[in-house]
């Protein structure tokens, strides 16, 4: 397949155009705008799916990529700024996930937000949001990545604060925006470092991923230090801070739970398909930098702490969306943990599988919330203590949610098991090999998996099973009838939470045959870790100019770098496999244990949750208050430190800058103007202007004396002049 820009760029441009057109039609034709947005995103889904199928199922080897660049800025020979499109297997998969899940979320939004008075503007913001994420997936360089990343930042701000009439969403949107901003600042530093190093190595600065890999392979970062730490560590840390901000990792996880203040489809989009995925995607893209910067241990710890901490916080939430929000943070922690233990494609697989089942979970929770209408407050009910027994009222939603909960808990045959188990397996290998360093993350990872199963089924049991706890609410809730924009997205997503789509069984057991590839998991075949062994291939990568047709020769499949032994020796690979199997058995046991505990606690009631709360009330309060992170940030960091700093800065401004420089400058000007006035008075006015008059008057005085009117005087003058004239002529 020959690709041109015209067949790729619409993936981003369609949703973006829908946003542009929609912003004109939103007021007059809200229904049309909603449909147009859905159609646009479906269009980019079709285009992505075509590229994806070409990449995955048809013709191309693992080496194939599309890279088209155009010159954006030309500010001299050493400062050319290129933007462009880079699609390899990873971006192709991300594109199809984002546009597909995004489309289903938009479809659901037409149901969920259909009666809202600002329905159309909601849809166009969602569209722009999706365009931003698709742009992130397509971008060939870190700068373009950053720009689309910021588009998402803006959209998340306006979508979280969509109900800006109320105070809490406004605060939440501001919090989300400001918190992610911290990561973005570091991201910018990272960009500067990359530009600097590529300039040193290639003589031509660049932000392109390919150039970055090239420079790393060429040893451009070797021996470079900044502030006493290696430059690679510094750059990797900067980019990873971007991940921490955007993907809500510890310690910047505070914004994500508040982000659920937005309408539920927004949460589905932010928490599943787009925004938080971008952060993990970034750290996957800059993985070589993390590796040579020796940051992987740090990444592992951040991931494990996030996964475990968020899972514990999810235990005590009563808001159905809050549980999901914390589980998102926890799952993102798993992804980062996967990056940290070096299981590159398991981390990416978890990103994809998580996007699917978390989108489904959020949409299901939206479905639940939307049908629970409190007639006293005229609001929707999100509190789980007022739910219960809803399975009878909404069978489809219940089905979707239970399946997705099984997936997220890591029950076999579901997608979460496939991806999470591989992350945990690698964590286990690292933990057993090096228990001093990796023991704690491994332990936290398994514990978080246990908690995940527990809190997810706590949510399921509290919502759908048991007795209805708010009888009035339950009776008012209509029985769910199948509707295409409410239940269809849920069911489609549910289908894709099945494990065989992602595992080896799809290809390995003959459902889809890759020519010449036997018994290999397609996912592992495709997603190749760009570690130092494989970086060299980027040296041959060339970018095509914008608008040219890609005429790369087709290479059929088996030419793949996939190494089933992961570069290990036979014995080591066998050992790793054994550990993976025991890890899998462990995580299956853990998943069922978690579900069983939830069952005991909330269905059988043989364990009383109240007893646990009163026994561990200190811990309960800590978890309820989110480990006091909000308290720490707002009351201590902002009020005690930042406000003090602000006062200091204000003092510098008012006391020093204003008083000395501004007022001082006024004084200088005053003096200057005083002397200018003096100069004007004395030199210009008195000497020049009056002086001219005076001199005229003086000459007048002199000349007037000649005009005496005395005839004899005139005669004397004439005579003297004539005589002197004659004397001068020397006539006499």
């Amino acid at each position, binding site marked *: 397949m020959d690709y041109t820009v015209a067949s790729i760029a619409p993936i981003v441009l369609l949703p973006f155009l829908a946003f542009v057109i929609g912003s004109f039609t939103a007021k007059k034709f809200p229904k049309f705008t909603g449909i147009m947005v859905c159609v646009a995103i479906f269009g980019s889904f079709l285009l992505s799916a075509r590229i994806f199928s070409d990449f995955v199922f048809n013709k191309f080897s693992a080496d194939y990529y599309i890279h088209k660049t155009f010159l954006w800025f030309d500010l001299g020979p050493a400062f050319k700024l290129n933007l462009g499109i880079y699609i390899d297997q990873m971006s192709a998969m991300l594109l199809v996930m984002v546009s597909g899940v995004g489309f289903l979320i938009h479809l659901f939004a037409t149901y969920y937000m259909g009666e809202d008075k600002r329905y159309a503007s909601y849809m166009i913001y969602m569209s722009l949001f999706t365009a931003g994420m698709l742009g992130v997936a397509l971008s060939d360089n870190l700068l373009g990545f950053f720009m689309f990343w910021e588009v998402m930042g803006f959209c998340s701000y306006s979508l979280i604060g969509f109900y800006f009439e109320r105070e809490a969403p406004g605060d939440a949107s501001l919090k989300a925006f400001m918190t992610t901003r911290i990561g973005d600042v570091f991201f910018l530093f990272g960009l500067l470092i990359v530009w600097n190093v590529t300039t040193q190595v290639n003589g031509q600065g660049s932000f392109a991923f390919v150039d970055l890999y090239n420079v790393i392979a060429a040893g451009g970062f070797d021996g470079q230090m900044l502030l006493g730490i290696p430059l690679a560590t510094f750059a990797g840390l900067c980019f990873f801070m971007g991940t921490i901000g955007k993907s809500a990792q510890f310690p910047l996880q505070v914004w994500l739970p508040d982000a659920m203040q937005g309408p539920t489809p927004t949460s589905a989009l932010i928490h599943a398909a787009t925004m938080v995925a971008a952060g993990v995607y970034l750290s996957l893209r800059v993985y070589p930098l993390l590796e040579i910067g020796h940051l992987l241990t740090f990444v592992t710890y951040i991931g494990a702490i996030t996964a475990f901490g968020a899972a514990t916080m999810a235990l005590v939430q009563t808001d159905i969306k809050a549980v999901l929000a914390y589980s998102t943070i926890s799952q993102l922690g798993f992804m980062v943990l996967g990056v940290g233990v070096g299981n590159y494609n398991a981390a990416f697989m978890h990103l994809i599988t998580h996007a699917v089942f978390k989108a489904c979970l959020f949409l299901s929770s939206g479905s639940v919330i939307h049908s629970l209408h409190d007639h006293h407050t005229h609001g929707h009910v999100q509190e789980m203590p007022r739910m219960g027994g809803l399975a009878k009222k909404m069978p489809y939603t219940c089905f979707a949610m239970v399946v997705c909960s099984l997936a997220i808990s890591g029950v076999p045959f579901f997608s979460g098991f496939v991806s999470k188990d591989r992350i945990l397996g690698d964590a286990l290998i690292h933990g057993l090999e090096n228990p001093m360093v990796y023991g704690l993350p491994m332990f936290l990872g398994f514990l978080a998996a246990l908690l995940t199963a527990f809190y997810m089924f706590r949510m399921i049991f509290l919502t759908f099973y048991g007795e209805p706890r708010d009888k009035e609410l339950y009776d008012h809730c209509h029985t769910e009838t199948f509707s295409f924009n409410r239940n269809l997205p849920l069911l489609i997503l549910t289908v894709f939470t099945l494990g065989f789509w992602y595992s080896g069984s799809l290809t390995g057991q003959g459902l889809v045959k890759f020519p010449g590839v036997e018994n290999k998991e397609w996912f592992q075949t495709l997603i190749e870790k760009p570690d130092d062994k494989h970086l060299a291939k980027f040296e041959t990568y060339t970018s095509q100019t914008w608008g040219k047709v890609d005429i790369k020769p087709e290479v059929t499949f088996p030419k793949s770098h996939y190494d089933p032994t992961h570069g290990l020796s036979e014995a080591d690979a066998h050992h790793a496999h054994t550990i993976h199997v025991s890890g899998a058995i462990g995580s299956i046991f853990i998943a069922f244990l978690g579900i069983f505990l939830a069952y005991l606690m909330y269905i059988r009631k043989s364990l009383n949750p109240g007893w646990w709360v009163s026994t561990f009330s200190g811990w309960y309060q800590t978890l309820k208050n989110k480990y006091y992170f909000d308290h720490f940030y707002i009351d201590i960091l902002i009020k005690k430190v930042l406000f003090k700093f602000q006062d200091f800065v204000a003092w510098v401004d008012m006391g020093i800058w204003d008083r000395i420089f501004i007022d001082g400058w006024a004084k200088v000007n005053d003096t200057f103007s005083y002397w200018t006035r003096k100069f004007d008075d004395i030199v210009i006015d008195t000497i020049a202007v009056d002086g001219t008059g005076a001199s005229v008057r003086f000459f007048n005085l002199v000349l007037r004396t000649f*005009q*005496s*009117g*005395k*005839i*004899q005087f005139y*005669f004397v003058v004439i*005579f003297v002049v004539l005589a002197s004239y004659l004397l001068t002529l020397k006539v006499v």
Partner: protein
Amino acid sequence: MMGLASYLIISSILFICGVVAIMARKNIVAILLGLELILNASALNFIAYSRFLNNNIDGHIFSLFIIVLAAAEAAVALAIVLRFYQIRESVHVDDATQLQG
């Protein structure tokens, strides 16, 4: 032998006397007298040069013109003086200041 120089010296003396009279005297009539002296000095010059340099009668003719001119000038000037005296009751030259700017 009386040469050209003797005549020129005489005429110079006459001229100087006339000029001094014009500059120094305040009486208009005396100034007119000085003027006559200057005219006669120049007439004498003409004749002397005519006699010693050209030996023709051009100088004589000029002298005659000068005498006629002097007569006419004296007539006009004395008429002005008479009028002036009638207006100012003075022939003092400093009283004639109406030309002053």
